């Protein structure tokens, strides 16, 4: 009966909704702030990987860290998770120095999926993703946790692999399972280390779109490390570019950061940038809309001095 009422009278629907459908879409408040202040880190005392990095992230969105190999992209991310403890400087999450936070409390705020493998004693895909619900095992029943896992598996198109062993699936599928594990953690900040590695072209695009979409949907900070400048240029809200020797070279929108000068300077590769305005793919948006995205065409590598 409630269904008929909805169609006839919109005012009554509002009443009915609260009664008939208990699962109201949650509103996702954003009140997260990550601050890095003069952070320096080195794996050995004499060689620093990061030098005085300052960064503040206080808006939801999809953030990409780009930069050449060995410049400290993963290191920054690990510092945020207390996997690396900086030699100098402080990191604050919601105003609290993470030195004073226990791993357990930090895990409530920041979800991080490293490049992980449990090949030695592989569990099924479901169990592997369920590990991501570790901090929710007390407040949620097994069915609820399974539901979250199933939703994430469906989002990443791996629900068909549910009971495959983790070591029997392909590298690209590992990647999707890893992302699903990050998503089920339901933290306001989600950090992924190269989420598109090992994925085919279709899923590179799909995963980047999904990450942008979930950041917008749930007002989250999604922070990834990325090597593909073109996909980054299209989907990132903000790009953080690192350069040698472990410093932030530029921060801003893809258009501001991914310029010819920056790319040539940071990567040592010649390039051309063209603006592509044929990229509206949303059927809900007027097809006449012009949205332009920088497209990078890479040229030859320059001989650069790597010893700096």
């Amino acid at each position, binding site marked *: 009966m409630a269904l008929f009422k909805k169609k006839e009278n919109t005012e009554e629907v509002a009443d009915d909704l609260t009664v008939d459908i208990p699962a109201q879409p949650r509103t996702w408040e954003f009140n997260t702030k990550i601050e890095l202040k003069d952070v320096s880190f080195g794996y050995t005392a004499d060689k620093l990987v990061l030098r005085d*990095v300052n960064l503040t992230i206080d808006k939801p969105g999809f953030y990409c860290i780009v930069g050449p190999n060995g410049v400290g992209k993963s290191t920054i991310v690990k510092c945020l998770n207390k996997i690396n403890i900086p030699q100098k400087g402080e990191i604050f999450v919601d105003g609290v120095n993470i030195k004073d936070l226990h791993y357990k409390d930090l895990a409530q705020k920041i979800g991080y999926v490293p490049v992980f493998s449990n090949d030695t004693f592989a569990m099924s895909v479901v169990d592997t993703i369920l590990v991501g619900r570790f*901090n929710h095992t007390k407040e949620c029943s097994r069915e609820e946790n399974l539901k979250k896992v199933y939703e994430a598996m469906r989002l990443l198109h791996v629900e068909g692999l549910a009971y495959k062993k983790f070591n029997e699936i392909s590298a690209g599928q590992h990647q999707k399972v890893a992302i699903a594990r990050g998503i089920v953690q339901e933290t306001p900040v989600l950090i992924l280390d190269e989420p598109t590695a090992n994925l085919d072209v279709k899923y590179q695009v799909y995963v980047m779109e999904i990450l942008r979409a979930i950041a917008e949907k749930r007002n989250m900070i999604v922070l990834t490390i990325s090597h593909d400048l073109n996909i980054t240029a299209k989907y990132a809200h903000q790009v953080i570019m690192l350069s040698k020797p472990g410093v932030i070279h530029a921060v801003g929108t893809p258009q501001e950061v991914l310029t010819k000068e920056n790319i040539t300077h940071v990567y040592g590769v010649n390039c051309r940038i063209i603006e592509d305005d044929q990229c509206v793919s949303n059927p809900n948006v007027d097809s006449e809309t012009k949205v332009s995205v920088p497209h990078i065409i890479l040229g030859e590598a320059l001989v650069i001095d790597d010893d700096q």
Partner: protein
Amino acid sequence: MPFGALPPFTEVPYLTYYDNTDSDPLLSGSVIESVNAWDQGIEGNEVQFKETVHEYVKLIRFRYLFILVCAIVIVFVSGYSLSLGAYNISFTETYYYFWNALIGTNFTVQEDITKASIIWDLRMPRVATAVFGGAALAVAGVAMQSVLKNPLADSYTTGVSSGAGFGATIVMFSGLAMTSYIPVVISAFIFAMIPTLAIIAISKMASASPTTMIMAGIGVMYIFSASTTVLMLWADPQSMADIYAWQVGSLANGGVNTQTVPIVMVCSIAGLIALWIMAGKINVLATGDESSKALGIDADKLRIIILLITGLLAASIVSFVGIVGFVGLVTPHIVRMFIGADNKYLIPASAIFGGMVMLCADQIGRVFLTTPLPVGVVMAFIGGPVFLWLILRRHKEVW
């Protein structure tokens, strides 16, 4: 604006952060649909979800079934084992006398008293030690393997066995074991804990990576093995025979009697429960250090705690029955093949299966062979080929 601070989102359309995903021009229709479906969640009665849950429940039922079958086997084999011996007590009678001895019934007929006493005082220690010792060694193996992320980790590779071996040897060599077996047990236990403590100390000094710990364990193992060998070269023939008998591990030696059974039981049950409570954390730890730190677990600390528990557990068993191989290393692998690597089920299942294997091996050694063989030897002879066959069969399924 300080360098490194993010500029505000600009009003250029494609850079805009869209509160409403549906109006983001860069997202394709299928992605919007998928994300909306994910955000709203699924109805509990969706067919495929129900199937997934059903499958999950089925797997769990299978795990419980596995545990149940092993438990039943233990009950029957124990009964049979209790009926063996010079004094004739039938299979069904054993349960009757065992139960009455357990609840402390005072028999009045002399025959009943004798039978109950034989069951309880002479035959029960061996059976109980087999079951609880096997369970404890198997669980210690499971935890060590998961925590050190190494399929070869067990009480051998972490040095517990060789430490215990040296401890027992030194007592037998010095002749202290002539009158009483207690010094052997105490010395074996103390020396069995040294490798574990050394591993922990070394991992505190260097980085506490699992590989470092295994390497440290193997280093300590060689030191103790060499020391034991030296003592054996110097030992007189009688001590030598004792040392040798102890080293192959047996349920027939002096460390197994009515006084020691409660200790073995308490140690193994306490260790089993402690590790079972931490099973969820062990699962997380098995996915790697970085991954577990990101999920809120202090990996280094947890690894040390678990290593200490498994060290105590293995040491407490090994010091009574001697060096029993196989059960700690191989039973976890066999159980994993059947029920998977989830420690919440793997730990109890390995305990039951380990107890079953040790009990059955002891039976086979006593019954089918004219010269009774030590339990460790029987397990290796029968378990080895079975294990190899399981490995081959599993690979056929994968390819």
